[in-house]
């Protein structure tokens, strides 16, 4: 039996987000400046949210959304903390 269009689209989206995560990781390792690395980490968090939501669609369960929300929250907080550290030299004055 041939796979249906919707499962092919799901596999395509999972692959595209996975490749985007790999590119972000490359920039995170390579990045010449520190803000580049923080930006790559922020983008990596956003892509992980998309990946987790795609897994939730694929398995038909709503359990993944709490995980995605938590990852989004932690990503924002960590990006703000790192950006503040780059700007001021410490996180909490």
């Amino acid at each position, binding site marked *: 039996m041939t796979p249906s269009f919707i499962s092919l689209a*799901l596999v395509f989206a999972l692959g595209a987000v996975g490749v985007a995560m790999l*590119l972000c990781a490359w920039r995170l390792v390579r990045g010449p400046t520190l803000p580049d690395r923080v930006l790559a980490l922020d983008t990596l968090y956003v892509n992980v949210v998309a990946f987790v939501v795609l897994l939730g669609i694929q398995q038909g369960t709503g359990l993944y959304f709490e995980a995605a929300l938590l990852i989004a929250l932690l990503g924002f907080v960590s990006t703000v903390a790192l950006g503040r550290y*780059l700007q001021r030299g410490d996180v909490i004055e």
Partner: protein
Amino acid sequence: MNHLEQLPAAWQAVIIVMLLVGGVFALVGGIGLVRFRDFYMRLHAPTKATTLGVGGVLLASMAASAAQGTWSVAELLITLFIFVTAPVSANLLAQAALHRREPSVAPPPPEQPLR
């Protein structure tokens, strides 16, 4: 994924379009993050990944759960949260890069006469 193949064809088309849009824009954001030349250009690329990429995937998820009869609000929460927080973090990173005087490949602005 049997539960998705049993949905009506119109819902399946909506979900497929949203998935393709989300995947393509996430990929474009990643490629831009790698290919652009300095930090201020790279700051531009992931905004596409955050708005249209994650937005498309979350809309596909909302359509999938709506087609199965249960409207869920969690996806909308994630979308709102990411849309609110992405400009804040981008602004903070731009401020940090300017503060650290990161190099830019943009030419300096032309001299303006004093008025």
